[in-house]
C-alpha cells in the first residue's frame, strides 16, 4: 500500500480513490477495456453518453487522425438507458468500477428521463451532463453555448437526483466562465472541462470533408494547452471542483492539470492508443508524488506558482 494519499473529493461528498478517470466516449462502457486494465484501479469511469432511447450514430467515416489529435463525429451512438441499466451497469458493478454516467438528450426532459431511470440503481457514483457534444443536430452545443439553457437543464436534473451532478462544458464559447457559472448556479457539484473543439478536415483530392458529417470534435494532445488554460481560468472563478480533460497522455500531463486547479482528470483519446494507459497513470502519479515528497495528491491541486 502506497503511503501517498491519493483520494480526492469531487463534489457532494463523493470521494474517488484517486484523481485519474477516463473520459466519456473514449472508454466505451468500460467493459471493452477489461482485458487490458483493472477497472477498479481507476478513480472512475465516465461511460459513453447515454440517451433516453438508443441512438444509431452518424454514417461513417466517423474519425480521422489529425496533427497530434483526432477528429471524431460518432454522433452519440449508444444503447440507450434501458439496455445500459440492464446489460452494462450490472457488469460494471461486478468489476468494482466507480461509474459516472454521462447523460445526453435533445431537451431538458431527455436529461431528466435518463437520470430518473437510473436514480434507484446502485453502483453509480455521479452523473455527468453532456451539454457540449458538437456532433449531433439538437441538444449538445445548442444547449452548451447558452448559459440560460445550461442553468435550466442542470436545475431540472438537480431536482430528480441526490447524486453528485457534474456538468461537462464545451470550449466553443466566447467566455467559459459564463457557462461555468451558469452550471454552478443550476446546482452542479463539479465541472468537467473540456469537451472537444469543433473542427474539420478536407480531402483536397476529392474536395470533400473526410468525415461524413463534415465537421467533428477535435481531441488529443493538440488541444491540451487550450484545455489547461481554460481549466486554470475556471478553477479560479468557481467554488466547485473542476475535472480537467484534454489530451492527457502521461503523468506530467495529469500533474499539469492538477497544478492549474483541477481536482481530478479524465484521460481521453489516448485510451484508444493504449488501453492500459489510465490504470498505469494511477501508479505513475503515485510514484511521481513519492519521488517528490508529495504526501497527499491534493497538495498539487491549484499549486501553480504564478510569480516569476
Amino acid at each position: 500500500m502506497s503511503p501517498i494519499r491519493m483520494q480526492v473529493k469531487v463534489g457532494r461528498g463523493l470521494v474517488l480513490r484517486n484523481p485519474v478517470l477516463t473520459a466519456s466516449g473514449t472508454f466505451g462502457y468500460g467493459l471493452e477495456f477489461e482485458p487490458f486494465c483493472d477497472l477498479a484501479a481507476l478513480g472512475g469511469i465516465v461511460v459513453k453518453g447515454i440517451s433516453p432511447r438508443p441512438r444509431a450514430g452518424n454514417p461513417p467515416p466517423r474519425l480521422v487522425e489529425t496533427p497530434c489529435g483526432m477528429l471524431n463525429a460518432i454522433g452519440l451512438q449508444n444503447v440507450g438507458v434501458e439496455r445500459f441499466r440492464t446489460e452494462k451497469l450490472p457488469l460494471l458493478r461486478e468489476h468494482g468500477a466507480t461509474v459516472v454516467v454521462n447523460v445526453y438528450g435533445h431537451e431538458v426532459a431527455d436529461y431528466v428521463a435518463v437520470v430518473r431511470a437510473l436514480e434507484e440503481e446502485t453502483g453509480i457514483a455521479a452523473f455527468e451532463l453532456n451539454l457540449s457534444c458538437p456532433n449531433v443536430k439538437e441538444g449538445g452545443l445548442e444547449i452548451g453555448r447558452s448559459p440560460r439553457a445550461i442553468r435550466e437543464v442542470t436545475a431540472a436534473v438537480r431536482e430528480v437526483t441526490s447524486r453528485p451532478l457534474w456538468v461537462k462544458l464545451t470550449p466553443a464559447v466566447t467566455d467559459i466562465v459564463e457557462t461555468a457559472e451558469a452550471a454552478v448556479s443550476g446546482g452542479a457539484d463539479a465541472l468537467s472541462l473540456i469537451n472537444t473543439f469543433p473542427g474539420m478536415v478536407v480531402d483536397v483530392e476529392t474536395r470533400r470533408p473526410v468525415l461524413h458529417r463534415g465537421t467533428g470534435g477535435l481531441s488529443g494532445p493538440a488541444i491540451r494547452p487550450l484545455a489547461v488554460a481554460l481549466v486554470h481560468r475556471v478553477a479560479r472563478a468557481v467554488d466547485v471542483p473542476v475535472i480537467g480533460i484534454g489530451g492527457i497522455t502521461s503523468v506530467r500531463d495529469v500533474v499539469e492539470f492538477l497544478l492549474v486547479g483541477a481536482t481530478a482528470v479524465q484521460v481521453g483519446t489516448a485510451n484508444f492508443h493504449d488501453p492500459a494507459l489510465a490504470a498505469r497513470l494511477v501508479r505513475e502519479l503515485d510514484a511521481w508524488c513519492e519521488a517528490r515528497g508529495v504526501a497527499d495528491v491534493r497538495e498539487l491541486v491549484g499549486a501553480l506558482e504564478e510569480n516569476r
Partner: protein
Amino acid sequence: MPQDLRARVLEQEELGGGCFRMRLDAAPIAREARAGQFVMIGLPDPAETLVRRPFSVARLVPDTGEPEALEIVYKVYGRRTRQMTRFRPGTEVALLGPLGRGFWIPGEAEGTEVLLVAGGIGAAPFPLFLQRAGKDLAGRTTLFLGGGTRDDLLLVDWFRERCGEVVLVTEDGSAGERGLVTGPLAARLDAPPRGERVVLACGPRPMLRAVAELCLARDVPCQLSLEERMACGFGACLGCVVERRHPEGEFDRYVRVCTEGPVFDAREVLP
C-alpha cells in the same frame, strides 16, 4: 484474448505497387491469430502515433509448425503508412491483437470448394487462410487475384505454390485476364458446381459490393472482409461502423467492423 505487446520489426521488404511486407517478432499474437483477424500497429509513443492502424495478419512464420513471427502486408496510403515504411529491423512497435472475427473456415465436407477473391492489397488476409486451411482444403481453393496492373498483384508465386488454382486479372491486361476480378468469378459461379462452394472476399468496397451481389443472386455463401477507419480496434471508439443490410430498427443501423467483423456474412452488411 487480444494482447498488447511491444514487438520488434524483424524485416521489411518493398513488394512493388506501393506495397510492403513487414515481419514482426510477436509469437504470442501469431499463435492465436486466425485468418481474417487483424492487429493494430503504431509507435509506442502517442506523440508519434496517436491512433494506431489496423492491418490483417497476412502470414505466419515459419510456414508450418509453431508460429514464431507474423507478417503484415500494407499499401502506402497516408501519413501513418508512410511512417511505417521507415521502420527498420529492431524498431519497436506497439502491437495489439489478434482482433475481430476472422473467416470461418468451412468444414471438411468432401469437395467443399473455396473461392478467394482479392483486389489489390485485399490479398492480405489470404496467405494466413491457406496456412490455417491445411493442404487438403488449400488444394480445393481457387484464388481470384485482381488489380489495376501487374504490380498490384501481391505474393503471386507464394500463392501459386499453395493454392489449388490462381486466376490473375488486371484492368490493363498486363498480367492474366484483362478486366475486373468479378468477370472470371461470375463465370466460375455460373459453371456447374463441383460441390458446396463458399466465397471469401477482401478488397475495395466497389469490388466487395459486386462480389456480394453475384453471390447473393446465386445463393452462394459469401464472407466479406471489410476495412474502415478505426481508433481502438477493440470495440470502444465506435468509429469503424458499417451499415447492416437488414437493420432490425433505426438504432441497429450499424455494426462495428473491429468487433462484429472485420469478416461479415455478405447477407449481414451493405459494404
